[in-house]
């Protein structure tokens, strides 16, 4: 048995718990999950059927845990797992799944299919069977602190520009602040307006906040590649940073998987509960707005629609907050079909956008979002995830659509009511 196979099987075995047993015992292979997956609906390739992507884990369960499988294995009738049972699924789980979780919402017997796909990714990652792009990003996250290779020096340069543009001081390493803000790599490198918007909004609302020199990066490549140990290591950096500054809350930025990694999976990755609370920026802005601490003026007249980031809505439970905020500044807001918990992914979640090999497939499945946007007649798409925004900007550009992509935090900042000095 090869070392890769041994490592992969070891992880798969460790993942078989009561949930996995109930899921595989319940699945009747009805195929309904296929219709929920944009990688299937946009390609009509049956291999992208979500439950098929779990086959490495399912085969192991069948051989080693099911009644007939155990008998067949004992009698030598079953096909043992081989390395190709892992390598042949690499493209399916890394390129052909954005971990959007829509399949887990539609399964009639309640199988959490995306949860099991993550377990397969975990096994592949540990076995060293992962796409080059993701491996590189993960390595940079571990070595440098950011998947895009962003260092503290880059952050300082961004801060300097923001301070010059806004005339506001960006608080750094302030002990005892109420909130510690995190940034995703995209927000540092591509969308510095996010930090600028935070500065303006928090100044307007009188929020006590800080950035941390030790923990500014929210992106978690460990989660994207499926390596729980690395994911935990990256979460621990944030925890250490927050504990060092003794902050009460940590703000997850406009980044879907960062929110999942920090808010929901983080305590499980590191094996302990946090001493602080994690809030998504949409939750915080909605709270401040409801409390009257954020006051906006003027309304956008442009027809706008909202793209729900899967990790924030379906896998994160933040549904009403962005809508409350958007409706307060837009008089021509229109919902997409299938919005909210049953939204369609942009196509770049779950690490797909960091995986160069998946580029063509990502653009193919963007057709679903393209048709959704076109059906609304909107000229602007607002979202609350910088990765979704980047993926949709690429899709819009490739398809020569006349659509503007906007971040909700920055829109709120642009509508803040002037306050007397």
């Amino acid at each position: 048995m090869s070392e890769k196979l041994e490592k992969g099987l070891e992880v798969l075995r460790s993942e078989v718990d009561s949930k996995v047993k109930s899921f595989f015992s319940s699945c009747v292979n009805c195929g309904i999950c296929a219709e929920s997956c944009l990688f299937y609906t946009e390609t009509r390739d049956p291999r992208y059927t979500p439950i098929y992507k779990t086959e490495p884990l399912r085969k192991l369960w069948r051989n080693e845990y099911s009644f007939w499988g155990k008998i067949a294995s004992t009698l030598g009738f079953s096909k043992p797992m081989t390395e190709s049972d892992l390598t042949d699924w690499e493209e399916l789980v890394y390129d052909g799944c954005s971990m959007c979780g829509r399949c887990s919402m539609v399964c009639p017997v309640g199988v959490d299919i995306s949860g099991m796909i993550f377990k397969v990714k975990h096994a592949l990652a540990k076995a060293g069977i992962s796409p080059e792009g993701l491996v590189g990003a993960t390595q940079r996250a571990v070595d440098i602190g950011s998947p895009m290779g962003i260092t503290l020096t880059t952050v300082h340069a961004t801060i300097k520009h923001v301070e010059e543009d806004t005339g506001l001081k960006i608080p750094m390493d302030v002990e005892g602040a109420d909130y510690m803000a995190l940034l995703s790599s995209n927000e540092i490198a591509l969308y510095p307006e996010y930090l600028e918007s935070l500065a303006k909004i928090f100044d307007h609302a009188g929020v006590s906040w800080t950035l941390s020199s030790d923990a500014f990066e929210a992106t978690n490549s460990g989660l994207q590649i499926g390596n729980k140990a690395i994911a935990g290591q990256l979460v621990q950096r944030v925890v250490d940073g927050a504990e060092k500054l003794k902050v009460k809350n940590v703000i997850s930025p406009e980044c879907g998987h960062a929110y999942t990694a920090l808010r929901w999976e983080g305590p499980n990755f590191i094996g302990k509960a946090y001493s602080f609370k994690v809030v998504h920026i949409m939750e915080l802005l909605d709270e401040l707005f409801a409390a009257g601490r954020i006051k906006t003026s003027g309304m956008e007249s442009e027809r706008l629609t909202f793209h729900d980031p899967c990790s924030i809505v379906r896998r994160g439970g933040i549904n009403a907050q962005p809508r409350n905020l958007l409706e307060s500044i837009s008089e021509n807001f229109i919902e997409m079909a299938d919005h909210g918990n049953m939204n369609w992914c942009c196509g770049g979640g779950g690490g797909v956008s960091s995986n160069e090999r998946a580029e063509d497939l990502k653009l193919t499945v963007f057709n679903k979002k393209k048709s959704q946007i076109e059906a609304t007649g909107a000229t602007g798409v607002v979202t609350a995830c910088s990765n979704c925004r980047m993926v949709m900007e690429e899709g819009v550009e490739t398809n020569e659509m006349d659509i503007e992509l906007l971040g909700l935090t920055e829109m709120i900042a642009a509508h803040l009511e002037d306050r007397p000095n």
Partner: protein
Amino acid sequence: MGSIIFASRKQDLSVARASASAGAIKTIFSRFLPHKEIAAQVSIQYIAGYLFHLGLFALLFFAAPHVLFVEENLLGFGWTPLPHWGFIIAAQAAFLGLIILWLRRMVDPVLRLISTLDDHIAAILTFVVMLTGCFALLEGSTGLRLLHRFTVELWLIYFPFSALMHSFTFLPSRAFTGAWFGRRGVDS
């Protein structure tokens, strides 16, 4: 079922936004119907599925010979069985549903890829049990009744070790997933 109930589960250390139990209970019931966003695409599976399952349950619990069997051999009391026309309708619904589901399994590219031998054996065994049951009732012959009993016994032997167990395991499966979504405040 024992291995599902008694197997280990890791405790979730994240702070729940809402009740996991409420999510579990809600999802146990909500998954009886498809989400409206996907209903049109999966209507055949749901309609055929309900025809088959409801027809089968009606036959299993309300076919006159079954009620009599329970009264005489198991409980000592019975209940009002289906009239003959009710039996015919239930049998037709069950056969129609099962045949549609099985034909789709044979021709649909997705189902051809993901179906296992177990899926086919379970469908064929269930079909044979229903068919011999109809013969037994319609002909009233002892030999055909014995054939039906024999196929039922085969079915019952196969049941606990097969996809047929979804009849019970769908409950913990829905509950686990419902709890996962529920604690995150997601209505699944």
